[in-house]
């Protein structure tokens, strides 16, 4: 993966840039010394590291605005960062740019029960929102696995998901409004506490824009009432096909579970060895189906799901009898990533989505590719919405294995697209899948998306090098080409 070559002139101006930023964000808000920059060199995609010119940690929207306006006037690139948990390199620094860390925006500003929403600063963690409102019977629904650490600002940027997406949606379906600062320093409010806003749905396009359109300085999230009860069913199957067919049967029966997770045998073995969740070791595929709602509904539907699984020849059927047991069923799944981390020095997590009916075909093809690349793979799968997380096992200390893992991952994602799916279901494109965008989108499609970028950030200074395989100058893209079919844009150098 190649990042843009740093601008030597900018790198040479580092001392001056740090001085100027310190005037805008006084106190401890600007880090320029090499030791202080080390923690910011990478995000959750730790195979990539770059040291930024400086890290700025503003505390007010006015400071964010001043920093961005100064950076735009001085041609300095900016990489926004929440908690740095991105799995796609969304917060990977640029050597000739600054990191704008939003961690100090950590206050919950308003909990509005009557309108079932909360107004929070972007550095508040995902889980902290639920913690602040659960005593009153509410919660914030999207629950990415990193929810203890990841921030709501990062969730907005990445449109984060979680295991409950099928029923409760992604971040984008649970937002009402936000305040963003454009690269120009202008502050714009999108949405509010109502269900829709005047004008274009800019909140919708900012959500999931991976920090390329604006810096989020305030977020209004929807709060949901906590379900009265939740029950999980643990199902073991002798084949992936039978597990996949059961998922289809559940949905065909009109049941939308709160969560429906699948693990294949390598993932089951790793998770069981790690947490001892009591998973059936004879199963080739494991399903966890969670139902929530009134007790009467959980009872009726869990019996129904068990019946459907039995009809597909499930070898294990266990319904949680207590909250402790429900959490135990989940413990293995939630620890699947670290569990795989114990059996392999490194792993590489992919994130494609496929039409569910393609699951047996895709899993068998992934197994075959693993043999060809000589690398193991464990699969966990948000089965309800077709979001696949193959974990490719490799050892970065062995020459060539990182490259092989990346090539294997790219092949998996190409396969996802080929069967009618997409490159990323919830982790984002970032730098990781940037060069695969052409698998899903034509040059014309990407130019159309990039013109949206130009409307927000015409100088292309906000998080460049992410999402788009090539960045075209906005002036080029802005020209009107009436003829169709011909190449509309000159090829600019690839970075």
């Amino acid at each position, binding site marked *: 993966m190649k990042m843009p070559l740093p601008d030597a002139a900018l790198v040479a101006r580092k001392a001056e840039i740090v001085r100027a930023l310190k005037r805008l964000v006084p106190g401890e808000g600007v880090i320029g010394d090499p030791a202080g920059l080390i923690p910011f060199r990478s995000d959750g995609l730790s195979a990539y590291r770059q040291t930024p010119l400086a890290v700025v940690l503003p505390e007010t929207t006015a400071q964010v605005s001043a920093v961005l306006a100064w950076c735009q006037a001085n041609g300095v690139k900016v990489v926004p960062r929440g908690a740095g948990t991105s799995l796609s390199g969304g917060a990977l620094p640029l050597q000739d740019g600054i990191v704008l860390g939003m961690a100090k925006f950590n206050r919950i500003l308003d909990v509005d029960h009557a309108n079932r929403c909360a107004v929070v600063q972007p550095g508040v963690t995902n889980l902290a929102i639920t913690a602040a409102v659960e005593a009153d019977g509410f919660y914030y629904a999207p629950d990415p696995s990193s929810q203890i650490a990841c921030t709501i600002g990062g969730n907005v940027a990445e449109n984060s998901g979680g295991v409950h997406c099928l029923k409760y949606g992604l971040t984008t379906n649970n937002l009402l409004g936000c305040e963003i600062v454009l690269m120009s320093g202008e502050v714009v409010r999108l949405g509010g506490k109502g269900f829709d806003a005047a004008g274009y749905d800019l909140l919708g396009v900012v959500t999931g824009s991976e920090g390329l359109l604006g810096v989020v300085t305030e977020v209004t999230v929807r709060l949901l009432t906590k379900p009265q009860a939740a029950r999980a069913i643990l199902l073991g199957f002798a084949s992936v096909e039978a597990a996949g067919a059961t998922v289809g049967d559940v949905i065909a029966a009109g049941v939308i579970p709160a969560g429906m997770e699948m693990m294949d045998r390598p993932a089951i073995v790793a998770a069981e060895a790690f947490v001892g969740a009591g998973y059936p070791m004879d199963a080739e595929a494991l399903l966890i189906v969670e139902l929530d709602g009134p007790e009467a509904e959980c009872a009726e539907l869990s019996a129904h799901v068990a019946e459907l699984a039995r009809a597909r020849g499930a070898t294990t059927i266990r319904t949680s009898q207590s909250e402790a047991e429900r959490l135990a069923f989940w413990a293995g799944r939630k620890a699947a990533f670290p569990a795989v981390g114990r059996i392999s020095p490194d792993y590489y997590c992919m994130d494609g989505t496929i039409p569910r*009916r393609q699951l047996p075909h895709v899993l068998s093809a992934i197994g075959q590719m693993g043999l060809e690349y000589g690398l193991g793979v464990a699969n966990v799968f948000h089965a309800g919405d077709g979001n696949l997380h193959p974990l490719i096992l490799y050892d970065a200390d062995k020459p060539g294995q990182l490259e092989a893992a990346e090539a294997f991952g790219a092949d998996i994602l190409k396969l996802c697209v080929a069967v009618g799916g997409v490159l990323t279901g919830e982790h984002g494109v970032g730098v990781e899948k940037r060069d695969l965008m052409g698998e899903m989108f034509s040059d014309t499609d990407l130019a159309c998306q990039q013109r949206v970028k130009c409307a927000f950030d015409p100088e292309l200074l906000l998080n460049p090098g992410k999402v788009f395989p090539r960045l075209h100058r906005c002036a080029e893209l802005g020209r*009107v080409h009436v003829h*169709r079919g011909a190449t509309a844009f000159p090829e600019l150098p690839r970075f």
Partner: protein
Amino acid sequence: MLDLAARTETPKTAEEVAQVVAEAGAAGSRLEVVGGGTKRGIGAMQGADAVLSLAGLSKMIDYAPEELVLTAQPGVKLATLEKLVAAQGQMLPFEPPHLAKLLGARGHPTLGGALTANLSGPRRIRCGAARDHFLGLQAVTGRGELVRAGGRVVKNVTGYDLCKLMAGSWGTLAVLTEVTIKVLPAARTELTLLLFGLDDRRAGEAMTAALNAPAEVSGAAHLPAATASRPPLRGELAVTALRLEGFEASVTSRADQLVTLLKRFGRVELLDAGHSDEFWRQVREVEAFHHGLERLWRISVPPAEGWRVGEQLPGVTLYDWGGGLVWLQSDADPAQVRGLARALGGHATLYRGEGVAFEPLSGPLAALSARVKAAFDPLGVLNSGRLGQG
């Protein structure tokens, strides 16, 4: 309302749409983009050189009930689609209102029209809006370029979410030529709880109490006495309604809890599934306001503030979305209506009557919106001026 002087183009393929738009751009012409034409009166376009009708793009492309996705051309009629998914035991979760009668329009509303207007029914409060179920698209931008965005799966974050931009753009950015939406299993049954005689404020409190309980309320509406007394309801008292949907046992259990919870607001009556369905159709289609000469406003505000519209403005009101959506029929000065909506943290759209339809934007947001419009349609070919300035 149809401008008979204007030429109508009815392309049959996406490529033909691209050609019409490109030619209009080259000629400096402006197009009015029309699906079923039922919403043309909202922000009516003035002086279009031609009408681009999507009547020729009305095919179903793919419907995979087990994947919960459906792909169709935008000109497919909502009614056709609703029958198709109902036959598979599914529904359009955002429950799009048709509104043809409300707007005094002939013709049939289409899927593309519901999406570009981001129209959502009472279930908005529980299941989300049209924009939340809009997964993928193929469209022709004002540049005459055919583009794709999103996908045909329910979970996807690849690239910018241009579907959201199209939802609520009223055809000003691009012409949809194919859309993919998420569908869901239809509820097995439904039940509606009714409270009577509450004033708007008290009704707002009752709706809030119900929505803040773990009862999964999927419709919360209030018809003040002046509204409830009109056809089709012709009641004597104000009516406050709360809908529950789902499996039988679940609905029964939640209804029992809500009846207890709502006792302090008065006697609770129940509407069975058939009557409930009919009641919510009337709310969705705003049937109480099908007649009348006063301006008709659609006002979107934070739900708990809704009752203040009826308190502070003359006219009759109907509250949906737990108070978050207020229909107001009133001869109040438009500036007063918009001023109140803004003061309450929302906005107002004029659905019927003389005046500017859409909320004017200002400041950096207006400038940014104009740049977004220019990004898709720099020559102003598509429905230009419909959303007001920008």
